[in-house]
């Protein structure tokens, strides 16, 4: 049997388990990842099965989590760090951007840091401040880091294993509001898309929606809801490096494109996509690339998050505007 229906959280767990079975150098570390199994249960049962040496309940210190992971990696281990929530990655920002990202280049290629940093990200769960942010652009802006995000259980299962076996540092964004969504998971890695590849999640001919992580589902629902037009949805998956070919192929086909993410639009990842598409597919475009996302403000209190977060209506409103051009 090579498929089973699992929640995204459970699929992550199975992927981590597989990676730990396959490679004794894989260690999991983070706050509450041991006995509790992580606040989202992604590491549930791993400490019990692999021991405290391989699943470390760390001190409450994020700079320490990433800094020591770098040291472990220098010694031949493959640390998988969990940052409990998006808003708590910033104490580790120096270690990630100034240390982790640069060491291969600084060492003229002699040092390798196969560190994975898992970050549950995004809003929509009614949480208090610092628990709903989308900080991916800080990291895609930093050369030397790979940045990926999974949108469904099957990708969660395969991408975490690909991330762990990747020789580069990987920032792995997990769509926290989709943790409990269930879908069939294909356990055969041979069927998985390559790590760096974007995937057409839904085929269409009239417009392209580009998204990653939690917004893929929103875009699929929007595409489904639009009875008049045939909308293609591309799941970016790997934000850096970007699979430009898949993106451009879709946009050249449809001629219209809307980028959707939860992070603020201003200076966000969508700006990179829009600029790149404009540069490389200008004559195929029927309308400018539009962006739908968060506003240029701090993340609002949870009773306002439904306004802040792109939803089906806001996505379709943008699609309408590309057709009205």
């Amino acid at each position, binding site marked *: 049997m090579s498929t089973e229906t699992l929640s995204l959280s459970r699929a992550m767990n199975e992927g981590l388990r597989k990676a730990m079975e396959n490679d004794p150098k894989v260690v999991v570390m983070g*706050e509450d990842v041991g*006995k*509790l199994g992580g606040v989202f249960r992604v590491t549930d049962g791993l400490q019990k099965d692999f021991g405290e040496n391989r699943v470390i309940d760390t001190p409450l210190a994020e700079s320490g989590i990433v800094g020591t992971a770098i040291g472990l990696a220098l010694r031949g281990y493959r640390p998988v760090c969990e940052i409990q929530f998006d808003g708590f990655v910033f*104490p580790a920002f120096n270690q990630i951007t100034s240390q982790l990202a640069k060491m291969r280049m600084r060492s003229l290629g002699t040092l390798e840091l196969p560190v994975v940093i898992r970050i549950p990200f995004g809003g929509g769960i009614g949480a*208090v401040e*610092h628990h709903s942010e989308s900080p991916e652009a800080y990291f895609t802006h930093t050369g030397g880091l790979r940045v990926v995000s999974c949108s469904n259980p099957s990708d969660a299962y395969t991408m975490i294993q690909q991330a762990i076996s990747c020789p580069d540092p990987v920032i792995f964004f997990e769509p926290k509001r989709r943790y409990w969504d269930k879908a069939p998971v294909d356990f055969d890695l041979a069927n998985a898309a390559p790590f760096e590849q974007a995937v057409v999640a839904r085929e269409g001919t009239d417009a392209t929606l580009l998204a990653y992580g939690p917004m893929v589902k929103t875009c699929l629902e929007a595409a489904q809801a639009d009875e008049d037009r045939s909308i293609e949805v591309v799941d970016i998956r790997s934000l850096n490096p970007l699979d430009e070919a898949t993106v451009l192929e879709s946009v050249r086909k449809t001629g219209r494109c809307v980028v959707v993410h939860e992070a603020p639009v201003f200076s966000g990842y969508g700006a990179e996509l829009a600029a790149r598409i404009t540069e490389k597919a200008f004559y195929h475009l029927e309308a400018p690339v539009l962006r739908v996302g968060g*506003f240029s403000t701090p993340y609002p209190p949870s*009773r306002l998050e439904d*306004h802040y977060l792109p939803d089906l209506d806001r996505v379709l409103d943008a699609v309408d505007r590309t057709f009205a051009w």
Partner: protein
Amino acid sequence: MTVDAARGAPLGTVAEPPPELVQLLTPEGERVEHPDYDVDLTADEIKGLYRDLVIVRRLDAEALALTRQGELGVWASLLGQEAAQIGSGRALRPTDMAFPSYREHGVAWCRDVDPVKVLGLFRGVNHAGWDPKEHRFHLYTIVIGSQTLHATGYAMGIQRDGVEDAAIVYFGDGATSEGDVNESFVWSAAQNAPIVFFCQNNQWAISEPLERQSRIPLYRRAEGFGFPGVRVDGNDVFACLAVTKKALDNARSGQGPTLIEAFTYRMGAHTTTDDPTRYRLQAELEAWKLKDPIERVKAYLVKSQMADKEFFDAIDAEAKAVGSDLRRRCLELPDPEATAIWDNVYATEHSLLAAERAQFTSYLGSFEEVSR
């Protein structure tokens, strides 16, 4: 000597000193002496502390109930930590400044913050409903440890103003591992800042017991940074009051920082989203129940004949009334207007924000047109 394979480090190599827990009131309600600390309280003052303790416990229970009913998104309960918060909170002068973490609802009470304003953040109608300057009670800080540096800088300001105020900052046992907290120890020592570090060691940082953070009792960390540390019975409101007062006075008189470790216990879950049965034993909870911070004051009041049944009934009735009032006013909290998203982001709204605000308002308006 046992060796913990997980950390590959020998444990038990650091000699435990005899427990130096400052206590003035035993769990049984007996007053005990301490060579360095004492409180001189009138019967009314003690009854006042009792009232505070009972009311904040009641407010906490109400907030928990509101969360279960879906009226709050989440709640961080103070259950078990009432004495630590009321004792330290009542040691403050009005002009002192307190920097809380996110569980200091008892200190908020002492700073006259309307409890419904504390609920706002947990209900998700705002990020903080009170004016920190008015109450000398800063915003709740959720990013662990960050506020310790703010408090240190604030204390440096007090120092430069040449006044006899002090700053106090609250944080947990887990927080002591954060870089910011350790930097604040370094800074406040180097600057001889008038600050009190009030660490509520409730034994747990979500699922992690103190052993994951420290090999030595937390109060002893202070010595290495060059200032005094003291461990106080965090369930003894008298001791917390006495120890905090003295530390504040030392700060005021130019003697610099003190670290207070209030030894207490988180009786509830970390927050309402947590399930502590996954990581801790019921027996531990039962043991701490015997050290309840309120029962011992009650026992003392009874034994010393300072209060009778009538008093206790009156306090219970008052607490109940405060609780129902809180519930009613919580339910009445209006949801913010959508455009509040753009409020107060800058001193003066810049054009881009103004455009976003206008665009979104007209977008929302388009739905009304459709439904009309």
